[in-house]
């Protein structure tokens, strides 16, 4: 499974805007390149990234071939309640990766 790095503060105050940062290892092969014998290298990209906060979707991104390898996705999120922030990446060739972190909101 792909390795992912998540940076979410473990604690936050209610109403605070947090910076959520995610990084996942993925080739993001565009599908437009050819190998050294002239054969097209098939596309292999992450197509979708979804973040849920206690089960509710709070952020979604569509990824396309122009996005670099090992996509880094960062976004702001308001801390509302303690619980789980979960991340899911899905893509070509049945690619799927999930991560989740716990957060305490005071």
């Amino acid at each position, binding site marked *: 499974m792909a*390795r992912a*790095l998540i940076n979410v503060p473990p604690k936050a105050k209610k109403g605070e805007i947090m910076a959520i*940062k995610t990084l996942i290892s993925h080739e*993001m092969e565009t599908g437009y390149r050819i190998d050294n014998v002239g054969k097209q290298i098939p596309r292999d990209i992450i197509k979708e990234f979804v973040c849920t906060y206690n089960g509710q979707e709070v952020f979604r991104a569509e990824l396309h071939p122009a996005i*670099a390898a*090992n996509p*880094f996705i960062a976004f702001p999120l308001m801390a509302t309640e303690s619980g789980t922030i979960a991340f899911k990446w899905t893509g070509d060739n049945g690619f799927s990766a999930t991560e989740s972190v716990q957060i305490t909101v005071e």
Partner: protein
Amino acid sequence: MNAMRRSLLFASPACGGGRERSEAGGGPCVKAPEYPVSSRKYGALPLPHGEMEKSSAFRGAHTFLALLILCMASRTLAAEIPLAERKSGYDFMGRETRAMQDDDTANPGTLWVLDGEVLWNRAEGETNKSCADCHSDARTSMKGIAARYPAYDAAQGKLVDLEARINLSRTEHQKAPALAFESKALLALTAYIARQSRGLPIELKDDARTRDAIAAGGKLFEQRQGQLNLSCAQCHDDNWGQKLAAAPIPQGHPNGYPLYRLEWQNLGSLQRRLRNCLSGMRAEVPPYGAPELVELELFLMWRARGLPIETPAVRP
């Protein structure tokens, strides 16, 4: 404009080595540190502009250029960079790229370091031993190792870099097949080991058996080569801080390898970088693991002595 290009291509031979330094008079004379390399100058090489000089108009331009070069004498004629002026490639990067390197969770190199940690603890080969079985915790046993490699290996009777050292341990002690150059596994293990030296200054051991190799690497660094007839030193000693097209020319120090290069979208070794430069100079590119590449690696580490290790660094 292209004055800088000219100084790169024409200035050094036109200046004929150290002679202009005394004629320039007021210019600060840069004192070379003790170099194991015999004094390096470009003077012996022929001038590439013989036919152009026939035109008097060009002669005027040439005089202007010569004056310009004299003004820049402290830079264009500078030999080795004084130790106090040595700067990591980090200092030439933009704010965003620095931020990427500084934050481990934003630095893609961390992905390889974490993979390397898994490989370090994984039993491999006929002996079914992991790196950790002999070396235990890399955080203590591998601290400072990357800061003093390449080093002389007595058993092999040759110079080995960190990648070669890892492969020797695999083939000799784990009885496992050597990992291919630039394979994900070898990069991950190298990054994990070199990560343990982060922040420590590069300090090669004073070893009589490597002095000749440092000198040989230094000679290659100063050797004009390839269709562009350039040497490494012309950019990285004489014109660092200037620009090549839009990109700043760094001093070319090896203190962050293996590093994540945004252009590569991948982690890469120092040898990959060197082959990349040589190919850019339209010079013959030695294969991975070639002795001349390892000598060049050693020379660069010697040249960068004192700079802290940044592995895994991020570079544009």
